[in-house]
């Protein structure tokens, strides 16, 4: 083959063409609050991404996937958001490797990846509360799942990624040797070191798509934490829902759910014929008809009580499918509409195990605040990873969904103070309100991240509303302080 027959892989540069102005569209996170207007650039190829990067002005670009981060991470007021959801091809699978690995474009959702991998008896190692996230987003937010205490977060399983850098060059980065620092800054880096366009992820073998699950009810927060502290290591997956409405001696009552992947032998004969069947029913899409205050005292109390009482007191060895065990909310598309036009925020924090008392106090503050949350999650994290901005650290993590209402700022500020005082932090993928000053205190390794950013993107081309809010791309100011 002559050299001419092989076109050089060189992005086309349509710079001589007049730039077609992209219309501004309102983008917001899953919480549907704090939306702003960005130019949304549809990216279908690496060349598109390079071209969008070169055309960007001082407002910069930010990669965007399926928009499941709750706050302002994937929006860029006045600048460009790169819509990478069409870069959704699974490129290659090495099923015989040890471990097996898959190489995908960054816009592949975990949902489609799971569907593609299950027939091979392969399993995505980390799944957050929804499958509707992209691989790129999962890396950029370094997402975690119910198995954090045993398997770590998503970044722990990434073997290599291709990063489109601010200078327009593609670079392959791995956790080894000379690209190690850039790799770990990109994991959890919220899309600010470059655009992840491709990734290779290590997979786990699985015999079935089912789980054997043990469920226990706990009468209050102390009981729940106590039960959870015992035997977590016997389960790959462990999480608890708790009631954040009921006060008094039943405060923090909850339902602990722990499980392991089911072995083939554990399945009943009927299921054994299709042990890797992906069960993901859809109940439809929630229409946009809900007013604010759908979550009120009456509905929140009724839901929390019903959810608690419907759980069995003690049940072991129950067989559950993926949707039942992992992603009940994925059955309903656009469920965030239930919070009405004002939107909601999710507050997720972690404090070290030693600070269990602070954890308990935070729960008390939430329960007694009058702000109502129904979808509450409690979990024990295992060790963190080397990423300077990754969220998980060994300790207790708690998540509440709070409709945006008057006075919520005071509750969140008070919680921030408790959390930071205990050496904890809040999760950027969920955050839409933290101040830059508080963020700096919560993430003491921020300077390491900023140093990488200065090196790979000195002009701050990768930028987002979150980056501006948290001053990750701050121009120098001459202000008095």
């Amino acid at each position, binding site marked *: 083959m002559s050299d001419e027959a092989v076109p050089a892989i060189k992005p086309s540069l349509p710079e001589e063409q007049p730039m077609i102005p992209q219309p*501004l569209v*309102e983008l917001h996170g899953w*919480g549907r*609050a*704090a939306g*702003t*207007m*960005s130019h949304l650039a549809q990216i279908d190829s690496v060349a598109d991404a390079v071209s969008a990067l070169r055309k960007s002005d001082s*407002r910069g670009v930010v990669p965007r996937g399926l928009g499941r981060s709750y*706050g*302002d991470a994937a929006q860029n*007021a*006045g*600048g460009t958001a790169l819509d990478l959801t069409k870069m959704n091809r699974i490129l290659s699978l090495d099923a015989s490797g040890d471990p097996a690995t898959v190489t995908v474009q960054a816009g592949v959702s975990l949902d489609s990846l799971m569907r593609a991998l299950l027939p091979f008896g392969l399993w995505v190692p980390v799944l957050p509360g929804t499958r509707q996230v992209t691989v790129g987003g999962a890396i950029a937010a370094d997402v975690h799942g119910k198995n954090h205490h045993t398997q770590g977060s998503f970044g722990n399983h990434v073997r290599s990624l291709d990063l489109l850098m601010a200078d327009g060059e593609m670079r392959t980065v791995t956790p080894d040797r000379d690209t190690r620092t850039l790799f770990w800054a990109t994991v959890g880096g919220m899309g600010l070191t470059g655009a992840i366009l491709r990734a290779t992820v290590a997979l786990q073998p699985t015999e079935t798509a089912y789980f054997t699950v043990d469920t226990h009810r706990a009468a209050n927060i102390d009981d729940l934490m106590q039960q959870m502290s015992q035997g977590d290591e016997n389960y790959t997956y462990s999480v608890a829902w708790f009631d954040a409405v009921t006060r008094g001696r039943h405060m923090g009552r909850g339902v602990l759910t722990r499980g392991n992947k089911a072995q083939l032998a554990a399945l009943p004969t009927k299921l054994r014929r299709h042990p890797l069947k992906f069960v993901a029913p859809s109940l439809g899409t929630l229409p946009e008809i809900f007013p604010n205050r759908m979550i009120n005292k009456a509905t929140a109390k009724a839901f929390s009580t019903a959810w608690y009482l419907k759980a069995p007191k003690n049940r072991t060895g129950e067989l559950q499918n993926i949707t039942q065990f992992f992603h009940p909310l994925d059955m309903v598309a656009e469920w965030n509409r239930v919070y009405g036009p004002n*939107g909601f*925020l999710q507050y997720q924090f972690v404090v070290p195990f030693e600070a269990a008392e602070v954890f308990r106090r935070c729960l008390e503050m939430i329960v007694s605040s009058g702000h109502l949350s129904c979808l509450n999650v409690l979990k024990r994290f295992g060790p963190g990873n080397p990423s300077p901005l990754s969220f998980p650290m060994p300790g207790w993590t708690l998540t509440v969904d709070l409709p*945006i209402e008057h006075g*919520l*700022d005071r509750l*969140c*500020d008070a919680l921030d103070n408790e959390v930071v005082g205990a050496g904890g932090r809040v999760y950027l993928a969920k955050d*839409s*309100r*933290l*101040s*830059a*000053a*508080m963020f700096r205190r919560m993430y003491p390794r921020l300077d390491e991240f900023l140093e990488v950013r200065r090196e790979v993107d000195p002009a701050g081309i990768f930028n987002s*509303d979150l980056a*501006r*809010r948290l001053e990750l791309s*701050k*121009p120098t*100011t*001459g*202000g*008095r*302080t």
Partner: protein
Amino acid sequence: MINALGEPQSLLLLGGTSDIALAIARRYARPGLRVALAARPSERRSAAATELVDLGCEVTEVDFEARDHASHATTVEQAFAGGDIDIAVIAFGLLGDPEQAWHDPDLALELAEVNYTAPVHLGVLLGQRMLAQAHGWIVALSSVAGERVRRSNFVYGSTKAGLDGFFLGLGEALREYGARVLVVRPGFVKSKMTSGLEEVPLAVTPDEVAEAVIDGIKGKRELVWVPGPLRVVMSGLRHVPRPLFRKLPI
């Protein structure tokens, strides 16, 4: 960026020593809030800066002279040097003696320049900035005096009527670019501007105006009245026939 709970990260106060501007800043103050105080250099400005620094804000003092149009671009540039401005408040204004104002051409011109020409000039400059950043608010302090211009202070009233119309229109123009404008129509505000004047019913404090501004931004409103019931009063007065209106003690 204004966060999901309506808390801004940066303010620009044009007329930064006005009671209303400072009341707004105090309410928004939290550690790390950037405040550009644009006003004439004065002890009052230094004192305001010190107060806000004590509340944890990062304060930049910017020189600003409303009637020196040529200096406006520099003022705005300096204010934006620290990054995006989330909320820019046009809080300067001049009341003047209402009777003198329609006899003295210089005073009439000064009122027109301070209350209308300068805000329009700055409104365009700020509008361009807000358009480029595609987020943020311009808050313009109008007045009920502009809703229906009365004999008793028609020079002042006419300037506020002009300002009011301009900023409502600017708000409509900026909407599709993600930036917003809030026009605030207070009644009688007990402040240094009105000190020595006789108080009228429904008078409000600068703090109440500030609260209305904050709620207006949270609620993404275009126009707020302070106090709220003034809206009803004024929409009634607006339609009173002129011969009768003339006889009203207002």
